[in-house]
Every structure is written in C-alpha cells, then in structure tokens.
C-alpha cells in the first residue's frame, strides 16, 4: 500500500464522527467479542447449557418446599399460583441482566488484562462507545440466552407463554437496557477508579438482583428493601417482561410499570452518562487510565 493511500485512510479515520460512525465502531466491538468467545469451544458449550443450569437450582428449591408446580401461598403474594412459570421467566430475564452487568461493567478491566485497552483508547471513537459496543454484544449474547432458557422451560418444565406478549416483551427488553446501561456506566466508573472493581460489580449486581422480583415477588422483602426495589429499573423491567409473557397484552398494571420504567430510564442513563464522562476525564487527567 502506498504512503499516500495509507495517509488517506488515516485522515478518513480521524475525520469520522457522528452517531453512525460510533454505531459502526460499537458493532465492530460487538463482533470482535463474539469472535473471541467463539474461539473457545468450551465457551460455546457453556453458553448453551448455562441458562438451563442457572434455572435448575431454583426449580429444585421450589420443588423441595412446594412439592407441586403450584402454590397457594405464592398465589396470594404474586397473583399467580404457577410459581414455575413465574420463576422461569424471571430467571430468563436475570440471565440477560447478569450478562450486561458483568460483561459490560468490566469492559475496561478485561481489555486491560488482555493488553488491548491502550489500542482501543487511541482508536478515534468516543470512550463511551467502548462501553456501548460491549453492551451491544452482551445484549445479543444475553438475549440468545433468554430465548434458550425460555425454550427449555417451555419444552421441559411445562411453562406456558402467551404468544401475544412476545413482541411487547421485546420492547420492554429495549427499555430495560437503557436503564441498565445507566447502572453499567456507574459500575464502569468504579472499575476505572478502583481498578479491581469486581467486588463492587458483584455487590451492586447481586444487590439489584436480590431486590428484583426474579424468583419471588417483592412482597416477601422487608419494607426498606421494598423501597429500594421500586427505585430500581430492574424491578420494573422484570415485572413488565414477565407480565407480558404470562398474560399477554392485557397484563395487569402493565401501563403503570412501563411509565415508571421509562422515568427511571431517563434518570439512570442521565446520571450514569454524566458520572462516566466526569470519571473518564478525571482518570485521564491523573494519567491513571491504564494503571493496574
């Protein structure tokens, strides 16, 4: 390749800007992560069996205490006696949330460990695109996990899904991702500042999961935790997702859930973006971006 041609490519790279260019960069990052994952055959195997393996312990716990797929006690708390469907759909969604929290929250640290952080940071794209790119990958990865887990649950555990609720539930996933991206931006800030941020990700992720109505309704939580639960976008995301899949378009209280989720999305993504922008600037000013 001639020098003039190479310089032309570099000039083009430096001039690239705008949402389309950032989206293309994010897509390239998502594809790169897929290629890395697929180069480990065990990863592929784990990806297929993990949604199944994560759900089984909950199914066994429920069976140990209930003995049957329905429970009257559960009915009074959750509005449905079918605890198997309730837990299966909630767990499927939690696989997506886990994939997003862990996969995206740790982006910088993972790139640092593999020695590719500096290369990515000198690529002419916004730093936030690095996080969005990873989010795009985890959305696809986690999304496929949700489909696999729900298919397993329908085929093997007698879970019933309302076909009319499938499309609206996908819209809920889109809304949920906006709110979770706000949480992920905050997690990334901790990773950038504390470096060994896995502890914080584990605590924040597990705490949000604990108060979310994944395997039980929030009515079993104590009053303080119930307040925390209603201020988390994950709570409303799981609730709306499950309600659509269980009851279809006429799901009870669905409109209220969507409105609250949309409001929480705006708050979380705004706060998360501002935090990320300031932390990124601060860490750069300290020259500590690639420090271990």
């Amino acid at each position, binding site marked *: 390749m001639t020098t003039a041609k190479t310089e032309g490519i570099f000039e083009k790279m430096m001039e690239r800007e705008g949402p389309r260019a950032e989206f293309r960069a994010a897509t390239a990052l998502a594809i790169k992560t897929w290629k890395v994952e697929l180069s*480990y055959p*065990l*990863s592929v*195997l*784990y990806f297929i*069996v*993990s949604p199944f*393996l*994560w759900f*089984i*312990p*909950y199914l*066994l*716990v*429920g*069976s*140990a*205490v*209930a*003995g049957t797929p329905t*429970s009257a*006690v*559960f009915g009074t*708390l*959750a509005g449905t006696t079918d*605890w198997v469907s309730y*837990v299966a759909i909630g767990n499927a969604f939690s696989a997506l949330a886990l994939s997003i929290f862990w996969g995206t929250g740790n982006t910088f640290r993972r790139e640092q*460990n593999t020695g590719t952080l500096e290369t990515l940071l000198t690529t002419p794209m916004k730093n936030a695109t690095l996080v969005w790119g990873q989010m795009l990958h985890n959305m696809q990865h986690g999304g496929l996990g949700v489909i696999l887990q729900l298919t397993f649950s329908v085929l093997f555990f007698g879970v019933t899904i309302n076909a009319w609720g499938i499309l609206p539930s996908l819209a809920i996933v889109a809304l949920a991702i906006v709110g979770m991206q706000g949480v992920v931006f905050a997690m990334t800030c901790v990773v950038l500042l504390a470096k060994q941020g896995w*502890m914080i990700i*584990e*605590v924040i992720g*597990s*705490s949000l*999961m*604990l108060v979310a109505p*994944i*395997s*039980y*309704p929030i*009515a*079993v*939580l104590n009053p303080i935790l119930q307040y925390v639960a209603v201020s988390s976008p994950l709570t409303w995301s799981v609730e709306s997702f499950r309600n659509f899949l269980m009851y279809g378009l006429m799901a009870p209280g669905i409109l209220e859930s969507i409105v609250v989720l949309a409001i929480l999305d705006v708050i979380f993504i705004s706060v998360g973006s501002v935090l990320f922008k300031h932390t990124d600037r601060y860490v750069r000013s300290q020259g500590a971006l690639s420090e271990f």
Partner: protein
Amino acid sequence: MAATAAQRMTESETRSEYLDKFKPRLMDWSAARVFMMKNLVIALRYPTNVLIWGLIPILWLAPYLLMMTAVAGPGTSEHFAEISGFNDFLTFAVIGWFVYRYIDTSIWSVGNNFRWEQFSGTLEPLFVTPVPWISILVGAAFSDTIQTTVSAFILLGMCTLLFGVSYAATMILPVIIVMLLMVLGLYGFSFMLAGMILVFKDPSVLTELISTAVFTVSPVNYPLQVLPTGVAFAAFLIPSTTAIIVIRELAITGIFQPLAFLQSIALLLGLVLFFWVLGVGAFKYAEKWTKTKGSIGGF
C-alpha cells in the same frame, strides 16, 4: 568489593551444587509451606477480600431463602419436612452454604491457582523453580483453606445475627473431623481441576461450568431427594456431598450416632484416597501433556 564478589561466587556455587544434587521428588513439604506463606502474605495485604467473601455469599443465599418463603410461607413446609427430615429450611440452607464455601474455594482458588499465577506474570518463574508442581498446589490449597475458614465463619456469624439460626456447639469435634476429611478430598478434586485448566486454559468457562454443575447436584439448599435417582447417586461422588449431609445432621440435631458417623468417615476416607489418586494422576498427566505441547505459558 572483592569480598562481595567472593560471597556471590559462594552463593552461586551453593545454588549450582543444590541444582546438581537435586532429584525430582513427588512432594516437597518445605516448598508447600513457603508457597502457603507467600499466598497468605499477599492475602493479608487485602484483608477486605476475606471479609467480602464472608458477606457476598449472603447475597447469593438470600434469594433462595426468599423464594422458599414466597413458595411455602415462612420457615417450613410439610413437604420439605417430609423429604428432608428437618423442620426449618433456613437452618438447613445456612449450614449447607457454610460447607459450600470450601467447595467453591477448591474450584475457584486451588483449581485456578496456576491461571492466577499466569495473570500475575509469575507462572514461568514458578515452573522453573526446582520443586514438584504438586507441592505448589498443596501450598496454595493450605492458604486458601485458612482464608476460607475465616470467611465461612464470618458468613455463619452474619447469618446467625440476620436470620437467628443456631447450631449444636457440642458437635464441634465430629464436625471438625468431617470437615478435615472433606477438605482433604476436595484437595484431590481441585488438583484434577488444576490439571484440566492447564490443558484447556480458559478458566472462566470451565470453572463456571464445573462450579454450577457441582452446586446444582450438592445438597446445599435442598435435600438430595429432589434430584432424579441417578443424579443423586452421582452427587455422592463429590467428596462434599456426604460431608454436608453428616455435618448438617450433627449441627442441627446435636445427636451423635457412632455407627452412622463411622460409616460416613469410612466413606469419606475412601473418597479422599480416590480423589488424591485421581487428582494427582490427572495433574501429572496434564503437566506432561502441556510440557510436550509447549503450551504452558499460552493463553
């Protein structure tokens, strides 16, 4: 200057003499002790790690307890009491999680030990050290057991405070005996994993897979009776299954039955022997395989 040079020469001669006389051994306890101390010194630099590992499992245990409460009501259910023989699922699960901390460590820490050394950039220096690799693993296992014991007791203490669970303190001696045998058995199990990780490299997926599978078949949150018969039988091949059952029985009921206890000890001893032979054999094979392939330092 000349004195320093002479001293260096003497040290160097001593070293080469040591290397000349060095004969490969199966086990070097002195190296294991040194390695254990090295790991403990590093652990002491991060005391919050031990504390956090005592607290984080509460966030993993709580969803199961809350789900049990949501499905069956607070405390217990007729069906649970019937299949498990225990009235309170809270007390049942907490002691299960206490023991499970050791299983988790054997999988994540000991099994992955060489991978963590690789990430820290200290794997190659360790491999050129003239000591058997197995002694490095035994050293890592000792230090991890000490750290796990601290965090497991933090977990038990926190659960006692939060959930009001209590266990029979009079059974402490038999519980310790069973725990020791279980930990020994788990060492063999983790050596096997360490060998697998040397071969397959990517520890996150392999470890996750094994960890989730072991958790699923272990009677941590539920009795083995809820598993299909074949799976329940396979669960006994993990050294911790028998230990969880015996420890739970002793700690909750406070009743010591000598014959049943001795039978469990005999079973555990058999498993310890089996897993040490299997673990050391698998690790030796993996070591030879990676050396032949030249893939020790590869990612």
